[in-house]
């Protein structure tokens, strides 16, 4: 109950008069003068502001840390530098059969090269052989096409090495020509 209270009654409120009155009694307005004591304290309120300041400081640190994390995360995922490092060019060696620009094939000295494999290859010299563009591979028989059904008339004699498995060759379009590797996705269960 309010502690400090003085009531000034302008009229006595509730006296039932036996006398019949024509009009109903007018509503009574009481003016109450009270001196409300402001609450000494309210729940949670810290009048000194200490708790607020401490938390505010902590909040700024947390905010900056989070913003920093988010900004950095997004920057590293921006994906800017796609350049590959320098890689030495595979170089042909003297012993390997090389297709010159003119398209002449140099003889392949290695016996292994001529027959069984159907293509000239280096004698164990560790270099690959560039196939020059535009040369008539079939004629010289040096170039060994991969995956083509056309037979190389080079001293191979051997049937076209089907280096491709299950590939009908480039004349056939559509999915058969592509080795569909499964994608490496291991997606975690979607949170819901």
């Amino acid at each position, binding site marked *: *109950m309010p502690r400090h*209270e003085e009531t000034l009654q302008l009229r006595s409120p509730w006296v039932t008069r036996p006398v019949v009155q024509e*009009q109903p*009694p007018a*509503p009574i*307005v*009481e003016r*109450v003068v*009270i001196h409300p004591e*402001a*609450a*000494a*304290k*309210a729940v*949670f*309120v810290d*009048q000194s*502001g200490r*708790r*607020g300041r401490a938390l505010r400081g902590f909040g*700024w640190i947390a*905010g900056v840390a*989070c913003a920093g*994390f*988010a900004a*950095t*995360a997004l920057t*590293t995922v921006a*994906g800017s*530098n796609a*350049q*590959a*490092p320098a*890689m030495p060019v*595979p*170089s042909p060696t003297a012993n390997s059969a090389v297709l010159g620009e003119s398209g002449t094939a140099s003889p392949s000295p290695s016996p292994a090269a001529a027959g*069984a494999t159907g293509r000239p*290859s280096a004698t*164990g*010299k560790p270099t690959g*052989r560039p*196939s020059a563009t535009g040369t008539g591979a079939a004629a010289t028989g040096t170039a060994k*096409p*991969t*995956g*083509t059904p056309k037979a190389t008339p080079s001293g191979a004699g051997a049937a076209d090495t089907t280096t*491709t498995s299950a590939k009908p060759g*480039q004349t056939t379009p559509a999915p058969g*020509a*592509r*080795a569909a*590797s*499964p*994608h*490496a*996705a*291991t*997606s975690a269960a*979607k949170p*819901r």
Partner: protein
Amino acid sequence: MSRSRGRRAASRPRRRAVPPLRFTLPTVLLLTLLATLLLRGLVTNEVFHDARINVSVDKDTVPPALLTGGPVIDARGPGDPKSYRAEDHTMALTFDDGPDEVWTPQILDVLAQYHAKATFFVTGSMVTRHPDLIRRILADGHEIGLHTFTHPDLTLQSDRRITWEMAQTQLALAGVAGVHSALFRPPYSSDASALDDLTWPVVKKLADRGYVTAFIDEDTDDWKRPGVDAIVAAATPKQPGSGHIVLMHDAGGDRAQTVAALKIVMPRLQSEGYRFTTVSESVGAGTSMSKVDGFQLWEGKLFLGLAHAAVFVMPALIVLLAVVGTLVFGRFALMLFLSVKHARRTRRRTFSWGPPVTEKVTVLVPAYNEQECIANTLHSLTDSEHPIEVIVIDDGSTDDTVAIVEGLALPGVRVISQPNSGKATALNTGIAHATHDLIVMMDGDTVFEPSTVRELVQPFADPRVGATAGNAKVGNRDSLIGAWQHIEYVMGFNLDRRMYDELGCMPTVPGAVGAYRRVALEQAGGMSEDTLAEDTDLTMALHVNGWKVVYTENARAWTEAPGSIGQLWSQRYRWCYGTMQAMWKHRGAVLASGPAGRFGRVGLPLVALFMVLAPLLAPLFDVFLVYGVLFVDAPKTFTAWLTVLVVQLVCAGYAFWLDKEKPWHLISLPLQQLVYRQLMYLVLLQSWITALTGGRLRWQKLKRTGEVDVPVAV
């Protein structure tokens, strides 16, 4: 803020350069959460995942020699592109899509056993997730080539995406092992003859950036798991002695057959004079990898660290989301079950509170500047079927409220005027002047039905009942905001009240329509001013003192709900913060015994869970929703959201049916879920912040202690 203004005057805080921390911090937190989800989704291939595979097309633009040349294509530099193949007696085993924590170590073991070197074409996401495997691959002397980051078909991607895939994979490699590679193999590739007008431009584009593309000679198709023998046969060169680049996989499924095939084919070929080496060495190029240092190295390490942090944090987020989900659905279930029980019990024909209560009742109407509504309110009271005395407490109104009441000249209505001191004090003044033992409290803008007071006081026939809560209804329900609040009142408040009535722990008797026993009020010390929700405070005090608080669904009262977002915000802020204050004030009840203990151990935790904790975690739900819709799978996410909405619709529909309300306002329920719900948790968040920081809200008047005054929280 100036105290001389009335308590309802809005005081604007001074403009600041930066929005206050209480708004920026939660926003930053939520955005960071989203960024974490994105980062984690990226490295687990959940976001930006493109599983489409293109078709083959013609080969008009491909240099013909490449089609018939070797699998390693060097199109760098201005000259003609060259293709290379492995030398004789050289096998270059290549493993795509790795590294994988189960199979790669096994493959590495087999390779080490036969002193072989191989090439691993790794995807960036796997690199990020298994850095130790990459380091082991490099330590064992094998070569690493790039296989993009998310394994998309590059012919279907834009230039920017292709660049991004390569750059991100290089960054991942740099961060993990401090190297980067110039060797590349596109996903879904086969041999050089399969180059076509779509794939050749990609190879050329990447060659312009310095990449050498390595296709294959032999595809073992090991990913199809055709059997160990088939893999071995495919890996064995048909022409003995010819060099091959062979495709195998070390990730993406069960690779036991691959490992078994390796154990067979390697000794066999080695006995035929083959050596197993890397792709670069097999074409005589030495190595494709070189060290990274400087900025890119550190950026790579940073990326790795952040990605690992994101992956690490995710399970915790999932747990929190599960907690929210459980709380939300648990509350629905509890509400429905207990409401049914309550309705069955109170609507039984044989149900009765006791002998009818007919004694006279005092109705207190605290009013502050209610000139628009006070006449309606008082007229509705004079129509009351129950004998009442009305006391209007004028809390220092500055408008014509008092004059209007005087002008009405209604019998049985008194006005007590006091200087403006707040609703709690006004009610206490009213209690002091009340002459009867049953006191009904309402608001200055509430309209009663003729039966309201009678229905409200019938439960007092049970001597244990100390207070009753009526059924507050939203009158202005035809606007959008009104409709939302209408739904909330019917579903939230009234269904809640039935539930709490059954459990015997109702936390709030609504200020708009509630009745009390005078002795209970005196025992509780009247209304207190140390919380902003004096009605909740009082109700909790009654529980602590052992009184029963019940719900009377037939005591209907019509209130005018706030019509604007600003007013709604104010009202809910006061309610929310006030409820938290009241709960904290009565926290001792948790350890009490008897009815107080029951309230403390059942009611308080329920209120705390459902009204204070679950809504705080609700933003998580929205973050996941945004993440799912924008970045992962919009249809699936949308379906999940719809499911939740349907459940809520069912609950709301039941609540409406129970309350005999027409259901067509439920149309606004979906929009309510998108806007209103967020508003409510913003309110809750602000309440938490105010509570934690100890700020004073402008509606609270406190004695100055002489110390630095706390800035008023908005």
